[in-house]
């Protein structure tokens, strides 16, 4: 058990008592610009987010479909770096009540301060916590390789969230459930991130299988786009993660206030359904 309290664990305890399903929007840090990231987080909280996922853009995002690839490319073109994304979160941390969790590909964490893997990982965890970030999700770091990150986290209360997939056999699900901190990120589809018309047929079964192995919160992401889909997922999971569809809503708006407004409207519609 972590010595210091984990804000993500607390958030889910509160949600559980209130019988509320977590709504977890994803935005790419630095997209459309770095100065928009802080205001977007506040707008999403206002619209009913319980936790917010902030992406750190990477040049080669293997788990992402075209929409998040595009967001990563825009953010990089606008000069987003891991430290700048953390600074954008820090700029609103005192006004934000919900926890923030970062999503980053492994290489960015390993290179964080350029002083070798272990030093970089520790530096990242420290910098993230100082910026008000409570955990990290690393889509290309499977459970058997995540020990270095766990060691860097130590007893700081920072959460290392692991992903489970529909293709994970029971023994992998067990290892993931045991090691994941804060919550378990269940990937709804055999595929990359992106907007999809329907939810995969095996989803309920997959979540139920995982549920038998753990009491930790299970949040479902990848492909959830509409209020109806979010409602369906909310019936089986503790949290609903929405990324690509939100980014697409933002992409279609021009100008600061229009972007904030469309993000808020989009999320409110999901909130009403969840």
């Amino acid at each position, binding site marked *: 058990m972590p010595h210091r309290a984990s804000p993500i664990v607390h958030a889910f305890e509160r949600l559980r008592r209130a019988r509320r399903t977590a709504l977890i929007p994803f935005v790419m840090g630095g997209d459309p610009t770095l100065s928009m990231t802080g205001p977007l987080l506040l707008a999403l909280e206002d619209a009913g987010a319980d936790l917010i996922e902030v992406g750190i853009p*990477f*040049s*080669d995002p*293997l*788990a*992402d*479909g075209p929409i998040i*690839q595009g967001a990563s*490319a825009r953010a*990089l073109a606008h000069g987003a*770096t*891991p430290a700048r994304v953390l600074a954008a979160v820090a700029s609103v941390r005192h006004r934000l009540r919900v926890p923030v969790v970062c999503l980053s*590909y*492994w*290489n*960015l964490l*390993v*290179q*964080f301060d*350029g002083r070798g*893997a272990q030093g970089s990982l520790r530096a990242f965890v420290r910098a993230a916590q100082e910026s008000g970030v409570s955990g990290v999700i690393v*889509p*290309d*770091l*499977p*459970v*058997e*390789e995540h020990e270095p990150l766990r060691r860097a986290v130590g007893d700081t209360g920072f959460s290392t969230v*692991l*992903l*489970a*997939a*529909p*293709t*994970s*056999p029971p023994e*992998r699900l067990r290892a*993931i459930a045991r090691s994941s901190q804060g919550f378990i990120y269940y*990937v709804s589809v*055999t*595929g*990359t991130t992106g907007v999809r018309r329907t939810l995969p047929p095996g989803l309920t079964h997959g979540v139920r299988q995982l549920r038998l192995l753990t009491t930790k919160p299970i949040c479902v992401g990848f492909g959830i786009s509409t209020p109806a889909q979010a409602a369906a997922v909310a019936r089986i999971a503790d949290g609903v993660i929405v990324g690509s569809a939100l980014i697409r809503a933002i992409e279609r708006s021009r100008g600061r206030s229009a972007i904030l407004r469309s993000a808020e409207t989009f999320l409110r519609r999901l909130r009403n359904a969840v």
Partner: protein
Amino acid sequence: MSRREILPDRTGHFGPFGGKFVPETVMAALDELERAYAASRRDARFRRELRGLLRQYAGRPTPLYHARRLSKALGSLKVYLKREDLLHTGAHKINNTLGQGLLAVRMGKRRLIAETGAGQHGVATATVAALFGVECEVFMGEEDMRRQALNVVRMRLLGARVTPVSGGTKTLKDATSEAIRNWVTTVRTTHYCIGSVVGPHPYPMLVRDFQAVIGREARAQILAAEGRLPDLLIACVGGGSNAIGLFHPFRHDRRVNMIGVEAGGASLTPGHHASTLVKGRPGILHGAYSLLLQDRFGQVLPTESISAGLDYPGVGPEHAYYQLTKRAQYVTVGDAKALRGAELLARTEGILPALEPAHAIAYLAELAPRLPRGSCVVVGLSGRGDKDVETMSASMSAKHAA
């Protein structure tokens, strides 16, 4: 590297390098592949089938040819060429795709996907897919489709679907990312036939094992021809499959030096070359911890090389380990010299090499005056130059115009 060390270890690491850094969705498929490969390796029928295909279909063994005129042109060396360029489809890539194709069939996968840079691996995969009667889709950067238009036609003639990749640098790196994304989506029915000793474990191991036939043959052939082992092995390194195929069977022969030649591109300024081992830092790309061309934040840098097959910012983890342990040495040769290397071999031996191994020829020419008299050298001639004729003609006419 101790004598008994098994590479990679059970978790797929070559010292600090290697491992599996991929989305959870494909982790089970990697485990399945590892098990299927372990079982096949023990299965006499699989080995016999692969050996038969390599002989009857691909044209193995390839000659180890004593290049006398080249040797003379370079001074008093004894240069041997391992003629992988004579294989069916024109390069060493077929050694690997036949092996992986057989494995895929054994695992019941009815579809092969592949990334390709120069198009040689794409052609080799499409060929094997046709041979085994399975579906094939090849991902290729738009820029490479332009540079290697002939190979695009070849793949389509063989019945493969060639999917252009327009993201990022539009070359091999992005084609590989897109192939992995497609695999993440189709993993239940599809085998990802990776083309080099890169990617997550078990790929660097199994591609190396399928390519090690190059070095095993070369070792026996040189012993038969010279009654001794060579002093030096030279091969080009992009991802590094032909080089590791040549080097690996010699790794315990302490007196045999090994040099891998990377693409120096236009210049060694960041973004303008593909010399990963010479200029890179440790990092993670496409599922493996190895050396990587990256900026200080860990973003992968664009690369540049006249040869599409070497135009890649990563490198196989076993090479990173050979460099770390000083078992092999890695150097770099730029575009202009590589072109002269191709010309040198064409003029002295009547062999037009692909631009990839032309880098190795060029480095040998540079090194020759510093080698002891009578040194015996084996060069990995990984592919033939037909696919590069257009690129070479463009640079020839540029030269004549100047």
